[in-house]
């Protein structure tokens, strides 16, 4: 199903690149934007990077930056029409986008070499550089998520009507989430290109779309850690348990169903919430809040 890797890439590289993809999916879902388009932006980033390096001989890292910018640009353009949609319509529209990109990469043979893919991409990204980038991105996302930006996203996700009643501009935040998601996915795709020697259109099809969603559903879609944990688990599972590699799709499908029904917040988010509760319960356990006695008696006196 997913042929995201070829046998030359080490597991850690896979995990790191997938973490960025999962982060891209997390950002939109945290804001309540039901976008499944990360795979499409990853394709744009990857192909842009691959073609610039192989056909024009550009520096690989510069190509990645351009690939990321392409992802950002396209997501910015799409954000305008898509931010008017909600729920399943957003999901299907982004799904259509992924399919359109897939069609383009498969059929525009003159540009993309079609189903044969782009080969002999210089392997410029070592594990160290990938790790550095992921850490930088995580720090950035944690900062964004912790303060007013993250709070606004959370309120919008919980209930848009409440967000509006607090004066939060929903379209503005939706658009930012969308653009950020496109940037992260574009980066993920570009890095994938320069760390795996070759890419094919199928690498960024429905399989990748589902993988990105599964990672965030499994790990959790309201914290960055959820995306990281989900990427880690889902990428390494087929390696650790060889049998799962064959049945990858079935396992992913079952995981999606089981997790969303029985552990809807995802592994990491559930654990984090649990830890928060336990840690605070150990501090002063607050008594039931009752009204100050003086006020109560004053009221009862006035009523009788």
């Amino acid at each position, binding site marked *: 199903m997913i042929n995201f890797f070829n046998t030359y890439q080490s597991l850690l590289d896979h995990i790191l690149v997938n973490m960025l993809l999962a982060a891209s999916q997390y950002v939109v879902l945290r804001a309540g934007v039901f976008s499944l388009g990360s795979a499409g932006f990853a394709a744009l980033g990857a192909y842009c990077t691959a073609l610039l390096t192989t056909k024009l001989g550009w520096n690989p890292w510069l190509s990645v930056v351009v690939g990321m910018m392409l992802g950002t640009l396209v997501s910015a353009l799409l954000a305008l029409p898509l931010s008017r949609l909600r729920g399943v319509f957003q999901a299907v529209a982004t799904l259509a986008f992924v399919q359109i990109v897939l069609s383009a990469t498969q059929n525009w043979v003159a540009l993309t070499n079609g189903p044969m893919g782009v080969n002999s991409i210089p392997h410029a990204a070592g594990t160290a550089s990938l790790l550095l980038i992921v850490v930088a991105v995580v720090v*950035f996302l944690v*900062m*964004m998520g912790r*303060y*007013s*930006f993250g*709070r*606004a996203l*959370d*309120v919008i*996700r*919980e*209930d848009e*009507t*409440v967000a*509006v*009643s*607090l*004066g*939060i*501009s*929903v379209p503005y935040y939706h658009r*930012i989430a969308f653009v950020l998601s496109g940037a992260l996915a574009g980066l993920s795709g570009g890095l994938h290109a320069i760390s795996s020697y070759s890419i094919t259109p199928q690498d960024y099809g429905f399989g990748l779309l589902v993988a990105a969603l599964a990672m965030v559903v499994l790990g959790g879609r*309201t914290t960055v850690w959820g995306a990281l944990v989900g990427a880690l688990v889902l990428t390494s599972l087929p390696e650790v348990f060889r049998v799962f590699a064959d049945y990858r799709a079935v396992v992913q499908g079952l995981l999606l169903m089981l997790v969303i029904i029985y552990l809807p*917040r995802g592994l990491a*988010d559930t654990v*984090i*919430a649990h830890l*928060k*509760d336990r840690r*605070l319960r150990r*501090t*002063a356990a*607050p008594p*039931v*809040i*009752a*009204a*100050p006695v003086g*006020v*109560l008696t004053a*009221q009862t006196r*006035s*009523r009788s």
Partner: protein
Amino acid sequence: MSTTLVLENVTRHFGGVPAVDGVSLEVPAGQITGLIGPNGAGKTTVVNLITGILHLTQGRVLLDGQDVSKTEAPDLARAGVARTFQNIRLVPDASVLDNVLAGFHRHEKTGLWANLLGLPSARAEARQMRGGAMQLLERFGMTELAEHRAGALSYGHQRRIEMMRALASRPKVLLLDEPVAGMNDAEAESLAHIFRKVAADGVAVLLIEHNMRFVMSLCSRLYVLASGRLIAQGEPDAVGRDPVVVEAYLGA
């Protein structure tokens, strides 16, 4: 006292059926005005009409003398109209403090990047908001719970968090949609105490309830809604004795 919020002959039809019909009321600043009525009377529809969730079929809504009948919800919120909701929608995994801080949003002046880069202006504003939030927590008696996960707390606590969030936006008008539903008398009374203080600070409070007893001691003026129409209005004691009102509640 100026009349901050005025409804003039407000009507809303749903497919020909009037859910709200010719409602006129005034919510002055510094007082608590009650809108009561049996279930299904149309009280929440009135709130939705005021806050920009529904179009008015007829009539006007005036905020500080300005016609806001066609103003969209986000702009109304920014103009200082705050509300609480019948079903509490907090962010369950966020702390009490974070939930309350969300209410300060409309007053934030520093932008996204200033916050990200940790610029002094952003940090100063964050400190100010945090201070304001802690003050609210003090007022509501929840300072020790500041870092608790909102979803882990009791219903009573959650109601208070929602209230603090609405107050954080320093509104001109506060619409309380059944704020003490499901509470015992003691808890309801402590909230009533806070409502009085909020009104005393100059906010125009509209309290929507169907629990008559609760609103009696709290409101300066009552409006009674039944089947979308106002059937009585005036001093709470007088309204409470009005046979039309009694009939509406018993017959409902």
